[in-house]
């Protein structure tokens, strides 16, 4: 049963990591704007159609 201690330890470690990530995200302003990110991802399509002529078609690479 002592493995539970280890599992809880692992889990708390992961959770603590996530908590730090969350605090970083909030502090660095990741969530200051919770509307425009969802709209922004829709727009790179326009870019793509403009640029598609420039794209390198069938480029061979290793």
């Amino acid at each position, binding site marked *: 049963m002592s493995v539970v201690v280890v599992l809880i330890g692992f889990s708390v470690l992961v959770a603590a990591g996530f908590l730090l990530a969350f605090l970083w995200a909030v502090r660095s302003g990741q969530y200051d704007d919770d509307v425009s*990110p969802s709209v922004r991802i829709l727009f790179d399509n326009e870019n793509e159609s403009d640029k598609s002529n420039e794209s390198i078609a069938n480029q061979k690479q290793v």
Partner: protein
Amino acid sequence: MELQKFYYDNKIVKMFAYATLLWGIVGMLVGLLVALQIIFPALNFSLPFTTFGRVRPVHTNAIIFAFVGNGIFTGYYYTIQRLLKTGMASNWMTRFHFWGWQSIIVLAAVTLLAGYTTGKEYAELEWPIDLLIAIVWVVFGWNMMWTILKRRVKHIYVAIWFYIATFVTVAVLHIGNSIEIPWSLLKSYPVYAGVQDALVQWWYGHNAVAFFLTTPYLGLMYYFMPKAANRPVYSYKLSIIHFWALIFLYIWAGPHHLLYQSVPNWAQSLGTAFSIMLIAPSWGGMINGLLTLRGAWDKVREDPVLKFFVVAVTAYGMSTFEGPMLSLKNINAISHFTNWTIGHVHIGALGWNGFLTFGMIYWIFPRMFNTKLWSTKLANVHFWMGTLAILFYSIPMYWAGWTEASMWKQFNEAGELVYPNFLQIISQIMPMHYMRAFGGALYFAGAIMLVYNIFKTVKAGSFVAMEAAEAPALEKEGGMKQGEAFHRFLERKPIRFMILAIVAILIGGVVEVVPTYLIKSNIPTITSVKPYTPLELQGRDIYIKEGCYNCHSQMIRPFRSETERYGDYSKAGEYVYDHPFQWGSKRTGPDLWREGVKTGRNYKPDSWHFNHFMDPQKMNATSIMPKYPWLAKFDIDIASTPAKIRVMQTLGVPYPEGFDKVANDDLKAQAEKIAAGLKSQGIDVDANKQIIALIAYIQRLGTDIGSASTAQNK
């Protein structure tokens, strides 16, 4: 601000997409084979590498890690570049990731069929492959973090958070569950035993579902659903909240796989409580996905991509509601060990993972190849076939699960089991297996249509290997470092780099040290429980090798219906020498834990076991168990006995000192005795054959405690 020009690497997306299709077809075909093997035992072909116990892990591993795994990476490489407005940080890491992952898959298929397995579900791969997975995974994650640092968009879109959580958690789970000590180049024993092994395994097993089949796919959903609908996600706020809630809650739910089994009650309750809580963040994802289509439902009528997504997200919602319900003890008492579980996981696999992958593939290919999908009509046919297939698959499995559970538990007025014969129950649900196989075949046929449609689309289009894009560089802010700066920071400061390296090594050290401390607690609480004899140990390894745990449990729950059928319920202290535990999760056949108890209702003599392994249908005409004729042909690998004993000693199993040197004498003596016994029954078999060891192990099962010693177990 200056615009920077860069390219999205579509080539890697294409490679992973092709791999997804290839392994998807392979995985589904193998799935169809195992479904048919249950109906027609002859399809096991009496060969070791085509028999259910070895093939079924190939199916599960192929679908989870090859089909869904490559699906994750397809969508991941497509989306992360576009969301961060940058190419991948390292080209060679990207390629290494691809070829590394594919070689893991090939090695997995070969070794599993050859019988190299750890015997732990969804973590069956042996230690060299485990190491390879760890390396490839770290390269994938390193490349991801580096790409994130190089991004040109300040805001990290929610999908990428899901990818980060996936990377971090899968790494921890994989390492945690794979700590094992090798006794040969390809084989090992896990450091955990019995109850501990079960807890670690299902902590891993459940979170593999959470962080391999769920979080990365939610990330994909958050990109492809809005894109396909051309609508922003319903609530970005909700996506953030449910993401953090989901990852904080998921990791505690594992013990719900062990309800009513030999683990402490409080751990079971913990698992149940967190599972119920999980409904909220899970449904947050489903609601967010479906409501993204508000005002756009007309598009669902026309676009097969959206059709697939709608069913995928609905299936996600259904199975994340069903999951918590199955975690309730009273429901789990019915569902566990039955086909209900199989139905449940296939709603997730066929519906959520499968359909999201199909929709994504239909969406990505025309864009990468600058063309239209070859046939929308065919895609629609695929959609309807697939949807019907899911119903044809899951409804019979639910029905079968209920039927099994009811028949297992049915008592008559005299207090006796109404269906004491397990075979009768197997025969009862056989029509359900037929229908399930039909559903699976339908689903497979749909996948073939997908492949054909994509093949035609690819032929019609011209591939854009490197897609040009432009974006301004990310403005530097006070203190915030960008990718290259961070690297230069590491490179210029060797001392800091060294400290970081030491920290990494220390973590590795803790991971190494902790298990040895755990071994000490493997001391039996029941004094009559003794280590396996060398012959039984060899037999146990054959049991694991042939994948017996895929159909037989070794865990009698404390229900009257089970103690009547199988014998005294299982005690935690009985499993202290089981590296790995073999409790199983499904009873296609009966439980075996009290199989060796001479006074038990299931006891059979050695000769019965011999004949049964050779030809189960000869013993019971309606049996669906495969034949194992090679067990009487192949010799026991006695050369491995000393190494096995030594590793067991390291793991704290109290064999006397120097026992490894004499273990084979003990083994031979016991084998001779069994062979002589068989001979007196008219069965002529050499004492050095594998079947002797397996019989020895089976006859040992559950015999360490008599019913009198039950009282000792406090």
